[in-house]
């Protein structure tokens, strides 16, 4: 049985606890009461076909679901024991959660401002401190060497793979404890994907990572535990070596992972 490296960083403390989460857009329910937890410092893979509720789940966690007026949420999501739906400061909550969208979004600002945006929104004004954060985050996202000489040029002018790393740098710029990656590799080439995966292997030592992916191989490579979400319900949630083995808990999982359906 293969064993992903760095397993030792995982603790048994529950970082995120989801209980009976239901989500509907208007009359259409897309998540049907799911419960699970995510451990501190693990890489938690979520696999499943389109429309299975993966992205919506992430939006519930950082409460950007609030921006979809027709969405109705019930159940609870606790981060460090605090229900995100009762938090007084959603901006503080969002700063604790880094979010990387499927398509790279370079904001129409300079590379520097892209990364300095979140710290500035949080009230950091001192130039030295900002410089430090920008350099550190670009290093962490493996982008520093490529852009260090042109921090003033536009983030939108970078290539797709560079923009995705810029997006990751921006997600790291508010020093989150949780990093959510939503199919980060669908718009970038395999080599860049591997570079980002290497980055994630380093970041897992500092934070909890939720990895939503359509590439089952990617979840197998990186995730400590993997959840198979299908039509808004959990089909299977187990250690990755079980989910991706020849005999997972649910035969549907085997069929999906091996491309027999889905």
């Amino acid at each position, binding site marked *: 049985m293969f064993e992903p490296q760095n397993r030792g960083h995982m603790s048994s403390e529950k970082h995120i606890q989801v209980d009976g989460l239901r989500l509907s857009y208007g009359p259409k329910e897309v998540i049907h009461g799911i419960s699970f937890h995510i451990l501190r410092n693990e890489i938690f893979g979520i696999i499943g076909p389109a429309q299975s509720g993966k992205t919506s789940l992430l939006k519930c966690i*950082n409460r*950007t679901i609030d*921006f979809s*007026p027709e969405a109705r949420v019930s159940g609870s999501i606790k981060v460090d024991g605090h229900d995100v739906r009762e938090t007084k400061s959603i*901006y*503080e*909550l*969002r*700063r604790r959660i*880094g*979010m990387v*969208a499927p*398509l790279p*979004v*370079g*904001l*129409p*600002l300079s590379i520097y401002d892209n990364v300095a*945006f*979140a710290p500035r*929104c*949080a009230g950091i004004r001192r130039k030295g401190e900002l410089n430090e954060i920008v350099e550190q985050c670009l290093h962490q996202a493996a982008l520093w060497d490529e852009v260090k000489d042109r921090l003033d040029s*536009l983030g*939108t002018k970078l290539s797709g793979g560079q923009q995705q790393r810029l*997006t990751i740098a*921006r*997600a790291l*710029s*508010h020093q989150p404890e949780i990093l959510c990656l939503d199919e980060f590799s669908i718009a970038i080439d395999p080599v860049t994907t591997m570079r980002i995966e290497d980055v994630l292997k380093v970041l897992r030592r500092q934070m909890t990572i939720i990895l939503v992916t359509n590439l089952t191989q990617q979840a197998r490579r990186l995730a400590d535990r993997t959840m198979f979400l299908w039509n808004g319900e959990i089909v299977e949630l187990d250690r990755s070596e079980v989910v991706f083995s020849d005999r997972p808990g649910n035969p549907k999982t085997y069929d999906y992972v091996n491309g027999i359906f889905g």
Partner: protein
Amino acid sequence: MSDHPNQLFAETSFVRRKQRQEGVAKWVLGSMAGLMIIPLVLIVGYLIARAWPSLSLSFITQVPIRGMREGGVWPAFVGTIYLVFLSLAVAAPIGILAAVYLNEYARDNWLNRLINLAVINLAGVPSIVHALFGLGAFVYAAKFGYSIISASLTLAIMTLPVIIASTREALASVPRNFREACWNVGATRWQTIQAVVLPNAISGILTGVILQVSRAAGETAPIMFTGAVFFKAVQRGDLFPYALHDQCMALSMHLYVLSTQVPDVKESIPFATAVVLLGSVLLVNATAITVRVYLRSRKKW
């Protein structure tokens, strides 16, 4: 699929008919578009030809003399500038801020639907009705009297809905991705608007506002009821001849008066007045286009 490989790309009657239809469609559509140039060229050409004897720079800077039968249009020209500037100074900030609220904050509830409905209907109100409203609201109720301020406020209310509509369109053209990326890192809506939405919508917003200049400058009815007068004695070349509570002359009103009310006007003078009005409006529109081209060239995505 043809049986004979060498006939694979041969013209069939269907292909020929398709190409003929394509040619006709392109020609008809193109000529309709081309027709649009004709009225403009005819109007401008006719006006300039008839106005030629009076056209000179001093026509703008001179005041009317001999009971407006001769001389220039300076008081009307300055009056129009006053009215346009003041009305947009009122309408632009209110309109832009309202549009930002409607596009960025407003949820889909009955109150905001009502506001939207009000904006759409306000845009459809005829200018003569605006004029009556301005007369009742600003001249009498607010006791501004017949004055520049009453006329400007009336024009402001008239241009407001269009400014709101064009600003909303400019804001909506900024991709939602950008907003979501900002919200994800913990930015408030206002921080997002400041950093990303407004800077990228500003060219569209400015264009929309500037295009309203031509509308405010051209309207006669609203100002005739609220603050524009037949004649006002003004020193030649005086830059600030009016106070806010004064009545003023305006180009559109002046043109109407010269054409219908004053006997024995030198024939070319109304036409020259029209040329000045049209010229200033086209100049402002050209500025709008220049601004847009400049800002587009710096577009960031």
